[in-house]
């Protein structure tokens, strides 16, 4: 009897202990939001909602607005997805349908390994290799042939929105491609064979069977890739140019929330300046939180439906 109670209490203690740590994870998250919220109070009081839409950013006069970094974050992410989605789908299709069997595993592994390379390496490569190339060859060519569109006008500086988006795209391609490949591999072979048996071409099988079947997973992968791109710091900071300008031109330097934080946080001298930077961080956190929550809900709904 005595021994039985002791065993029982050992279990209870163990259970309580693990529960404490699980609650710790939740507590950490809550503290994160509360601390950011509290420390950005100074800036929230000073600028209110206008903070989000003001394009002032002047440490001398202590006027701060988040619009330029927010705009830069959204535009660079959007462009990166624009480049990355078709390429990733192409890679996934190649890996599941076209590549000879001996090539699939090594190629797939290579793509997965590339997702493990630290983002600072992508950023540095962008600065030293891609940016000069963009400045000397790609941007002058685009300017010459498409310069009548405001997006491709202006001086070719190499660093700027376009280069940042390209580096960002390179960084998320391995991620989206490998998840999409896994999704494609989950399509039942019977369905595909049935379609081939009806005389469909490879593309028709992909369009009518593989992609619709894996749609949920693909959208989930894109959302997760988006979450990464929004908060990515190092790949962007090197090449975005860090300038507070709003410009139609994609060649022009800009700023993202993460790159603003990386460049200015340790140098912020005024309390209001620091508080505004913290509010920027809070905004970034809330944006990614929203995107990631949507991704979670979407994937969960997907799982429930496929359970049925």
């Amino acid at each position, binding site marked *: 009897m005595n021994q039985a109670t002791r065993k029982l209490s050992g279990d209870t203690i163990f259970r309580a202990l693990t529960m404490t740590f*699980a609650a710790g994870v939740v507590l950490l998250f809550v503290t994160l939001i509360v601390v*950011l919220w509290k420390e950005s109070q100074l800036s929230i009081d000073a600028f209110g909602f206008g903070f989000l839409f003001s394009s002032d950013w002047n440490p001398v006069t202590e006027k701060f607005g988040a619009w330029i970094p927010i705009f830069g974050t959204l535009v660079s992410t959007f462009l990166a997805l624009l480049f990355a989605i078709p390429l990733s789908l192409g890679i996934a299709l190649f890996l599941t349908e076209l590549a000879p069997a001996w090539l699939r595993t090594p190629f797939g592994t290579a793509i997965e390994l590339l997702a493990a*390379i630290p983002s600072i390496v992508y950023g540095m490569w962008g600065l*030293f290799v891609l940016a000069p190339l963009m400045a000397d060859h790609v941007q002058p060519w685009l300017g010459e042939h498409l310069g009548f569109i405001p997006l491709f006008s202006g001086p070719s500086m190499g660093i700027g929105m376009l280069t940042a988006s390209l580096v960002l795209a*390179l960084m998320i391609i391995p991620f989206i491609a490998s998840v999409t490949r896994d999704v494609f591999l989950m399509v039942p072979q019977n369905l595909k064979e049935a379609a081939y048996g009806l005389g469909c071409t490879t593309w028709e099988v992909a369009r009518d069977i593989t992609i619709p079947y894996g749609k949920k997973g693909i959208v989930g992968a894109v959302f997760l890739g988006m979450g990464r791109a929004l908060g990515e710091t190092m790949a962007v900071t090197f090449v975005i140019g860090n300038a507070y300008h709003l410009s139609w031109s994609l060649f022009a330097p800009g700023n993202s929330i993460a790159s603003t934080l990386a460049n200015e946080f340790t140098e912020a001298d005024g309390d209001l300046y620091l508080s505004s930077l913290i509010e920027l961080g809070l905004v970034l956190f809330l944006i990614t939180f929203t995107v990631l929550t949507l991704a979670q809900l979407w994937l969960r709904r997907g799982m429930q439906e496929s359970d049925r």
Partner: protein
Amino acid sequence: MNNMQRRKIINGTVLVLSTAAAMIGLVMLTWILGDVAIKGASAINWDFFTQLPSPPGDEGGGLANAIVGTLLMTVVATLISVPFGVMAGTYLSEFGRQTALGSTARFVADILVSAPSIVIGVFVYLLVVKTMGNFSGWAGAIALSIIMLPVITRTTEEMLRMVPKEMRESALALGAPYCKMLVQVIYRCAMTGMITGIMLAVARVAGETAPLLFTSLNSPYWMQSMNEPMANMTVALFNYAMSPYDDWHAKAWGMAFLITMSVLVVTIITRISLHKRS
């Protein structure tokens, strides 16, 4: 042109485009790795591992303090996050599958896995650096441990769940209390998987820069303790690459090479061990 021909042409076009996409991806990525390997390997020599950084603009010197700093902070971060993450993961898998706390913690961990690491840096700055009054190696290690924690929590949960039900049942049937069954049977079964998860988390933070920018900062000196700013490879890489000196650029490539190689080696080892298991 009849329907069949049209379909064949569309099919051919798409297949060519898809192959082209794969080729573009492969070329870009070999290009990046190639540059890192070629420019990085030539910057690495004995001094790189043994000497302190030389003053700005001077040639020579090395990054011994940054290499040690990165290793030390990664080890401390691992020591903090492993017990925390394993316990939290145990709760999620064993006691909290259906509870409100379980699903909240699971959701929060999934969000934290992809949360912007720079925001974690800001958070730790406010929590630790501001309280302690100075940048420190401790702050850096804490920031890294916060990034590792959700990864370890979720992989531990997955790995514990994969242990066959029969293992649990037979241990319990022998009269083992629940916690004894967990520690002596379930943890042992899931050990390889859990270690893999921890290794992947280590590989991830070894290349993290953003959370260290405002926590450990960087330093050109040997560390005296973890209470002061601490040199590390990624922030040094950032500073060196942004500097105007050619010699520093070469060293930045050297660090990029070293970091990329270590991360890839760890990732490959874990993949092989996972592969053997499945």
